[in-house]
């Protein structure tokens, strides 16, 4: 009996340890990059030597965590990878598609020691990862690799973080929030392109009366909610949301902006259920000409031109009065911040990963400039434009030199608690069941945290 029990116990333990052993092996496999991080500089030296020799190079596989969702992110990435294959034939990239999850997956990968060699970062990721040494400081490399010399002077703010260090090779410049509109619908219903809030209200009334959704906003994502609020906020203070994020100012001064949005929402500015509308749904409303206006970044120019041709244009943001409209005409919402391709300091092939990250950023920007009709990129290229700018981009290119100020997108905010409070409060504005006082109270609460 005792022998039988002993055998049973041994078998049970063998099964258990085998199961745990398997898990450990998997974990070890997953954290290989981190484990070998202690010897990363040695490996890096080897990599450099190999690169320098340029022959008999060992195949290097790098994991990359990058955006790859729509044409605006897929095509530049594919182009950059194709160019990489020519310049670095020994490097192979293993893509993990970036999730739209507030960096949750990336942070989990970092916490478990599975951070990819190269990853896309923004202000939030940089602020979090630099505290835990999960992001490579690239100060020297931007000079060594000649990356800095290729940067547009106007986009230098996208290279340096608030502590003066470089954590990412940027490709995007100071992107802008644009207020698109369907010219044909405006003409058809004899609506004036609004310059004041009264004109905007009138436009909302006319479009609703004719069964047209005035403004398609993908409010489920929350950043467009902030963008819409910021548009109204910049008509009060050109610093917009940055006044609260960086300048230590309270939300009180922006109460009229919040009140105006609620008033417009009550008038029927947004479609019913707007806060459950995702990008595809909102875009469809606009592209199918069921909505007269649409808010998104300037990166939407290519897609909207393709869908609507010369029916689509963008307008300067309306303001409270004609005087304010002229006064703040060139104060735009949006803007850039430190972001781009970053490198895991514990990468097994650190030097190669840094070179590749810089290369990808340059090529990504190059494609956006040459093929996507987008001049708002961080770095310059000597390549010729293949796809000419759409008329909207030409108009924007003419306006850019006159822009007096920009603010930030939601992902460019540095104070995460303020960002979360603003996201929630801005979304509440879109319900119409909220008011300026509650908005101020909730955002100030976030600022005080």
């Amino acid at each position, binding site marked *: 009996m005792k022998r039988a*029990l002993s055998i049973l116990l041994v078998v049970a333990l063998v099964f258990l340890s085998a199961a745990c052993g398997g898990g450990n092996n998997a974990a070890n496999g997953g954290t290989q990059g981190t484990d070998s991080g202690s010897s990363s500089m040695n490996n890096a030296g080897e990599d450099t030597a190999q690169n320098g020799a340029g022959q008999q190079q060992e195949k290097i596989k790098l994991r990359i965590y990058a955006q790859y969702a729509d044409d605006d992110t897929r095509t530049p990435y594919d182009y950059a990878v194709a160019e990489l294959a020519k310049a670095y034939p020994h490097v192979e990239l293993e893509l993990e598609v970036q999730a739209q999850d507030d960096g949750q997956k990336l942070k989990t990968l970092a916490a478990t020691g599975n951070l990819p060699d190269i990853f896309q970062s923004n202000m939030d990721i940089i602020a979090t*990862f630099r*505290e*835990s040494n999960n992001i490579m400081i690239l100060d020297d490399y931007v000079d060594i690799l000649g990356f800095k010399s290729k940067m547009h002077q106007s986009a230098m703010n996208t290279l340096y973080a608030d502590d003066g260090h470089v954590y990412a090779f940027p490709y995007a410049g100071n992107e802008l929030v644009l207020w698109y509109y369907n010219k044909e619908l405006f003409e058809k219903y004899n609506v004036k392109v609004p310059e004041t809030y009264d004109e905007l209200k009138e436009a909302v009334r006319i479009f609703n009366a004719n069964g047209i959704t005035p403004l398609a906003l993908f409010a*489920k994502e929350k950043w467009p909610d902030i963008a819409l609020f910021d548009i109204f906020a910049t008509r009060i203070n050109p610093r917009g949301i940055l006044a609260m994020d960086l300048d230590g100012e309270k939300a009180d001064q922006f109460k009229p902006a919040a009140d105006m949005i609620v008033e417009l929402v009550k008038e029927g500015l947004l479609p019913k*259920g707007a806060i*459950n509308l995702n990008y595809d749904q909102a875009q469809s409303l606009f592209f199918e000409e069921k909505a007269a206006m649409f808010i998104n970044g300037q990166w939407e120019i290519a897609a909207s031109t393709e869908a609507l041709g010369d029916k689509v244009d963008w307008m300067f943001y309306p303001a409270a009065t004609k005087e304010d409209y002229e006064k703040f005409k060139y104060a735009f919402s949006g803007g850039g911040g430190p972001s781009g391709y970053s490198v895991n300091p514990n990468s097994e092939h650190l030097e190669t990963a840094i070179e590749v990250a810089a290369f990808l950023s340059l090529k990504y920007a190059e494609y956006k400039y040459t093929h996507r009709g987008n001049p708002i990129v961080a770095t310059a290229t000597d390549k010729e434009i293949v796809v000419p700018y759409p008329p909207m981009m030409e108009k924007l290119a003419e306006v850019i030199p006159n822009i007096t100020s920009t603010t930030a997108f939601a992902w460019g905010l540095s104070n*995460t608690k303020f960002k979360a409070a603003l996201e929630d409060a801005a*979304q509440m504005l879109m319900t119409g069941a909220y008011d300026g006082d509650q908005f101020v109270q909730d955002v100030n609460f976030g600022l005080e945290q």
Partner: protein
Amino acid sequence: MHKYLGNKRAIAVFTLPALILFTVVVFYPIVQVFYRSFFDWDGLGQATFVGFGNYEKMFFKDRVFRTALFNGFIFALMLVCIQIPLGTLLAFSLTDLAMRGKRFLRISYFVPMVLSVTVVCQLWLSIYNAEYGLLNKLFEALGIPYRQDWLTNPKTAIYAVAFVNAWHYMGYHFALVLAAVKSVPEQFFEAAKIDGAGRWRTHFRITVPLLAETYKFCLVLAITGGLNAFAQMFIMTGGGPGTATYTLTYLMYRSAFRLNEFGYGCAAAALLVLECLIVTILINRFVARERIVY
């Protein structure tokens, strides 16, 4: 068999693997959650011990916490009020009615249970759609002027989301009650019939009291399921509008991944564990205390 049950070493040997597994997979992480809740920690860097600081902030400073706690109770109440009575009603009707297609109905009631939560949420998102949704269209067809923006209204959103959860898992409660009803000996019903009790009276006086233990289990499932709810909010509303559909689990997610306050998120998780534990203890203490043996 008695020989083995009398042998304490044999009992230990047979239970040890499960015990070790439970400790590693459940108990250790729970202990870790409680431990981490005493730290100010972003999940990646160095943690700083703050004692009960996270709890103090939660109870006295965080307004979202109050919303989350309240929503958890609403959610649990909705599940209790919908899942158990409806599951019971359907189970009773299926046992009482002499009709064809009972097998089909039994499967139909259980079908939502096997659907993925994402599918269910997408289905209900379209049903709730303010402009083209089935629900509003139904009111319209009936001539009732009651069109609602179900998920956009901060006052109705939590009820709308809770209803989806209740509908999704109602089949489980139905199956539990049905199985329990079928296990009640037939002579109880026959005796009631001889005494002249009607169908409903029989159920109220005999079936329901005899199912007390099943209801206890259903109650624990419904309440802890409500307090733990996350997926529906995550998929359908993202916690919104604003923070209107936050629950403790969503607060935990927000703190850990949006605010980088992992320690605070652990405090929310620890409170959730305590909340579920207290509810389970209370239900076990006050509901169906006596074991019913037929």
